[in-house]
């Protein structure tokens, strides 16, 4: 709630504020979907300011444990915009993307990403 996240795809939005975490009462972690409202957007993009969108968290400052015992933690909170059915709105995803998304069934975002950790 009220977390401002960066948007890292070319859907047109720049900053987005979380309204609701769809899974879990407390928080949305890496790989979860959130409902967010667009706070800042590029002038000619697919989404405009004030629109309510869904997003998938790809970077989280909270650490996420992996099955080999290591933990992953990012410096910022970043989201990729997605529609209600899970299709990414943008066509490319910039930056690093962790492969936790594969288990959470977000292979589409992984295919559009340029680098996978």
């Amino acid at each position: 709630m009220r977390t401002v996240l960066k948007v890292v795809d070319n859907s047109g939005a720049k900053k987005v504020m979380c309204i609701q975490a769809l899974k879990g009462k407390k928080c949305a972690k890496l790989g979860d979907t959130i409902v967010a409202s667009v706070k800042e957007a590029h002038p000619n993009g697919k989404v405009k300011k004030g629109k309510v969108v869904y997003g998938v968290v790809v970077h989280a400052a909270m650490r996420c444990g992996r099955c080999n015992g290591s933990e992953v933690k990012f410096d910022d909170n970043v989201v990729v915009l997605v529609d209600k059915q899970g299709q990414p709105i943008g066509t490319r995803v910039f930056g690093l993307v962790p492969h936790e998304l594969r288990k959470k069934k977000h292979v589409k975002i992984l295919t559009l990403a340029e680098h996978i950790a």
Partner: protein
Amino acid sequence: MWAALRSRSSSLHPWKQGIAVPPGLNPTAFSSSSFTTAATTNKAFLSLQEIKKVLNDVRADDVKVLSVPNMHADWADYVVLATGRSTWHVKNIAQALIYKAKQKQKGVDRKVLPSVEGQEEGKWIVIDSGKIIVHALDEKAREYYNLEGLWTTETSQKEPNPELEKAFVKIRPKNNSKKPVQKVA
């Protein structure tokens, strides 16, 4: 608790070792014996030839197979793109592949199915069976996302990142303070 930890570390990056684990299932839920049977018999996962045959039968248009080295090296070996003429056709392609996987595993107690994403809306369905990933799109989605453009241009060029080069250059800090610089003895 230690036993649980040990089993988790043994499933270290199963996709890297070539033992493909369908991502929908929790790898820790498997016992070690079922892991080895899956690896040795490899019944669950469709080979390239079988996928090509299934796509031919379903009459999918414009089937392209890309071997994905460099960028996405760790997590898949082949990516198959197929187009469907309508959403129903795209869903049908997905169903056919799953049916083939089920058929291949007749007689096994625990069936391991490839995971499917986007099944309800037939615009872009991804079937992930470990080493091989099949993307079934309809024509509009294929144009929109332009996946071939993404992969073919990406593997050819890997330009040096200019920002990264700048980051490692030592820059003498500018001294803007009014204090005289202390000479190092």
